[in-house]
């Protein structure tokens, strides 16, 4: 494949310098700008790397050449339209595509997420990498193999069915000395083969994909290709890009929500070393300096005056749930009703009621949002770690009023991205300032800015009621959620990114938000589930803007629903696992038993790995200061099913909760890379533990007061359980199905964690705490109130 343009010097530099020393150290070779795997230096530059000045066209996903390049030395580069924020999906794509193409894994590399050189598969998100995005990759690789076999047939003069292919070498079955490599067949040419399918997820050729037993690399725990350069310091991250003439920008955020800028005193920073400019439009303010530390100082020192809004933008975090309780919903409720719940409640012998509170929780990326924007040649190149580079390209083009093909976004690695992080906001800001300055601009958010102003997962208030009949069965169930999610911001929307809001952009009809339902898995004959969204008084220019945070709206309803099931089991004096199993076994109406069978398999696997003995909760067994208990919870996320069991210790004197042991049983269908999957599940489980024990956005009536790692605590080394067991279950009714697909695994294991910990605290203490996080002071107060 020919180079589609001249490679800009800085990209070339990135491509070349990245791998210094790395080959020696790790026996692997990797190239930057989202490129991982084995590739020679010449290949890196002769592949379609990156376009120089000129229009940035969308790579045509109907062409094999946009996805796969075979090099003369018989290696291959895969170009995929996703991003891997660190869960090893890039390695998984290589495994699957190497299998379909029939090439050795270590002869391949994968380039991800840069808009002018990789097709638009959205980027990452929604746990879709393997479940959805890997399919077009596989079908294209299978088609490329089919085309290469046809070319081999012509070259060798033998029909395709008499050819074998192994490690990118085609040979005649009856005479293996007659052979030709993929590289020899393609020799610098393109495939020039069109694919069919009206959207990228349907793209296909004529070849069929392999069945699971035919896959060789898939299913192996191949080491992640991004780890060695992350460990030896050679990886070039988005924060590491430097361009000639670049300058540094920092934001000056409003000191309180909805504040109106009334004055800027530029003389307060004018004489500072390196000072270049103050930029301002509406309520958006930024400073630009030559050096990074100068920009930080100038942003802190700039004197600005602001007018407070006439009314409070929100209640304080202490009053939040009273506010939600009495608020008028922003839209009509969403309701699901089965059986006749009202009748069941009216004639009930025993009604159990409970109310659960889940506060706003922050995305709180490990490092502040950042981006570098280069306005050279009247175009815009944006370097970002944002997981959705394609919508960023569209969003920035629209925000700046630039033609779509004048903007490109280059994805590079960065601090964890678990949803709609502030990485998007920083990129829009960098691009706007870069155009104003006519120079490359690096924007970086500071810690307090990130923690206070990033998007938040919505707070939930959930009321639950249930009817227990005389033989201990839950015969009616009422779930009523209110989420504080009005004006939920989407991805890279040019009218809702923070800079647009601060500059005065208002959408006539803000996004409605949502109040999700819990997984509906139990045989409860009469059930009613209601979801309502409420808004805070301030909708725009507020640090309490909501956006997708890992498993959006999953952990909150699941905390309520799976805690409530535990409460009902306790009221029925039944073991909480037995109680769940009985209701799952009785559920006969659900997709031919697919969900039922997998639920049972996962719960059984968790119980077996843990060594669960049947007994009702609570069961305080500890003596003296420390009480110990166990808790279980389970949930579906899409087709993935997860059961979590936690062992906790509760310190009666301090209220401190420590998880001693965690067991996660997990079924996400076909496992592409078991070790990488375990790693993902482990980290995701601990993210759930962090949200159960620590995470809560606090605010007064005008600003977010959680601003650093002390006022916004997160899980730490000291919190880590002594033992974590991850059990990979294949609970499919037919576990050896040759076509069992992979389902999403990036978020599911977090979903039941809040409830598992809450249930374990109850088991240990007999005290039910219906509010997360289970911070020491809250737990201690609950224990004291209950006299425990």
């Amino acid at each position: 494949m020919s180079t589609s343009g001249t490679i800009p010097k800085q990209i070339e530099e990135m491509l070349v310098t990245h791998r210094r020393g790395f080959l020696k150290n790790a026996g692997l070779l990797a190239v930057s700008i989202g490129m991982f795997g084995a590739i020679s230096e010449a290949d890196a530059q002769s592949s379609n790397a990156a376009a120089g000045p000129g229009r940035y066209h969308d790579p045509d996903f109907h062409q094999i050449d946009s996805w796969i390049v075979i090099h003369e030395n018989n290696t291959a580069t895969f170009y995929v339209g996703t991003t891997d924020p660190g869960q090893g999906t890039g390695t998984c794509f290589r495994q699957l595509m190497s299998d379909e193409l029939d090439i050795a894994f270590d002869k391949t590399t994968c380039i991800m997420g840069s808009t002018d050189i990789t097709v638009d598969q959205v980027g990452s998100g929604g746990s879709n990498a393997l479940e959805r995005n890997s399919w077009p990759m596989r079908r294209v690789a299978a088609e490329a193999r089919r085309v290469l076999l046809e070319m081999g047939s012509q070259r060798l003069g033998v029909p395709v069915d008499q050819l074998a292919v192994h490690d990118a070498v085609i040979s005649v079955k009856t005479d293996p000395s007659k052979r030709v490599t993929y590289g020899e067949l393609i020799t610098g040419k393109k495939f020039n083969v069109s694919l069919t399918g009206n959207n990228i997820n349907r793209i296909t050729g004529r070849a069929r994909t392999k069945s699971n037993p035919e896959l060789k690399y898939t299913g192996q725990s191949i080491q992640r290709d991004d780890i060695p350069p992350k460990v030896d310091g050679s990886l070039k991250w988005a924060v590491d890009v430097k361009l000639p003439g670049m300058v540094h920008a920092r934001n000056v955020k409003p000191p309180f929500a909805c504040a109106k800028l009334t004055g800027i005193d530029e003389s307060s920073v004018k004489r500072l070393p390196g000072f270049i400019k103050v930029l301002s439009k509406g309520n958006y303010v930024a400073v630009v300096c030559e050096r990074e530390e100068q920009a930080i100082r100038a942003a802190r020192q700039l004197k600005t005056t602001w007018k407070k809004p006439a009314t409070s933008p929100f209640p304080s975090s202490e009053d939040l749930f009273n506010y939600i309780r009495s608020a008028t919903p922003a839209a009509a409720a969403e309701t699901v009703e089965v059986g006749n719940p009202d009748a069941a409640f009216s004639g009930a012998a025993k009604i159990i009621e409970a109310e659960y509170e889940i506060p706003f929780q922050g995305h709180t990326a490990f490092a502040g949002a950042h981006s570098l924007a280069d306005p050279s040649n009247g175009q815009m190149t944006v370097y970002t770690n944002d997981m959705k580079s394609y919508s960023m390209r569209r969003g920035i083009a629209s925000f700046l009023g630039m033609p779509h093909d004048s903007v490109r976004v280059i994805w590079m690695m960065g601090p964890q991205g678990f949803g709609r992080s502030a990485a998007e906001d920083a990129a829009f800001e960098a691009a706007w300032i870069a155009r104003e300055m006519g120079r490359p601009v690096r924007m970086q958010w500071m810690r307090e800015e990130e923690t206070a102003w990033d998007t938040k997962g919505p707070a939930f208030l959930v009321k639950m009621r249930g009817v227990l009949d005389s033989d201990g069965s839950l015969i009616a169930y009422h779930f009523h959620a209110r989420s504080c999610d009005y004006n939920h911001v989407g991805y890279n929307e040019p009218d809702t990114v923070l800079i647009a809001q601060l500059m005065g952009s208002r959408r006539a009809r803000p996004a409605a938000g949502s109040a999700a339902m819990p997984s509906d898995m139990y045989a409860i004959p009469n059930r009613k589930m209601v979801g309502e969204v409420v808004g805070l008084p301030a909708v725009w220019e507020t640090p309490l803007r909501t956006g997708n945070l890992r498993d959006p709206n999953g952990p909150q309803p699941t905390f309520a629903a799976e805690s409530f099931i535990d409460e009902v089991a306790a009221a029925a004096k039944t073991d909480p696992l037995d109680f769940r199993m009985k209701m799952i076994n009785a559920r006969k109406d659900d997709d031919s038993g697919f969900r039922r069978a997998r639920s049972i398999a996962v719960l059984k696997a968790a119980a077996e790995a843990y060594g669960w003995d049947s007994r009702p909760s609570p069961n305080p067994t500890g003596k003296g200061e420390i009480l110990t208990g166990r808790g279980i919870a389970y949930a579906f996320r899409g087709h993935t099913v997860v059961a979590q069991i936690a062992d906790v210790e509760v310190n009666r004197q301090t209220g401190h909760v420590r998880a001693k042991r965690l067991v996660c049983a997990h079924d996400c269908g076909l496992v592409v890379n078991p070790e990488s999957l375990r790693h993902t599940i482990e980290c995701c489980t601990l993210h759930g533990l962090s949200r159960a024990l620590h995470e809560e956005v606090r605010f007064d009536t005008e600003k977010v007061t959680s601003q650093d790692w002390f006022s916004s605590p997160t899980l730490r080394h000291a919190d880590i359980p002594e033992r974590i067991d991850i059990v990979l279950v294949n609970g499919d009714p037919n576990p050896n199905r040759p076509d069992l697909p992979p389902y999403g695994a990036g978020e599911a294991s977090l979903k039941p964690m809040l409830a598992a910990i809450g249930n374990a605290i109850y088991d240990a203490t007999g005290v039910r705490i219906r509010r997360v996080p289970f911070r020491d002071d809250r737990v201690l107060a609950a224990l004291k109130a209950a006299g425990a």
Partner: protein
Amino acid sequence: MSKIELKVNGRSHTLAIEPSTPLLYILRNDLDLRGPRFGCGLGQCGACKVIINGVAVFSCITPVSSVKGEITTLEGLSQNGRLDPVQQAWIEEQAPQCGFCQNGQIMTAKALLDKNPHPTDAQIRESMNGTLCRCMSYFRVQSAIKRAIKTMAESSPAAGEKVVA
């Protein structure tokens, strides 16, 4: 503006720089190092850590003028093209997720093990507690430290003698 001498990973540098500048920005922006990174700028997360005189310090809150001694960054841990046993253990255990914090994890662990080659689990948790990770790779990081302890003990001369005896 002052003339500042710095020795980093065995190389000497002379820089004309404002003396109050945090070391982090000089390492990253003037010396082009990528190991130490900005995470909080407050000395709370550890992303910026470098080793000076055997101690892992927060370079984001260390004024360059206060540095006394040679600075080792993540890039400087490997010797003669061989990764440090701590780094090797990190790869074996596949410790990082996004990896952005791992500079802090590795540098803190390296300083700990240089000082105390056989820490207890409790000492590991305590020594690492100020080094944050938002991907929650903590369990793997602790496993990697335990692996490094083992491989370093096996390859040290003392261990060799023990085996012979």
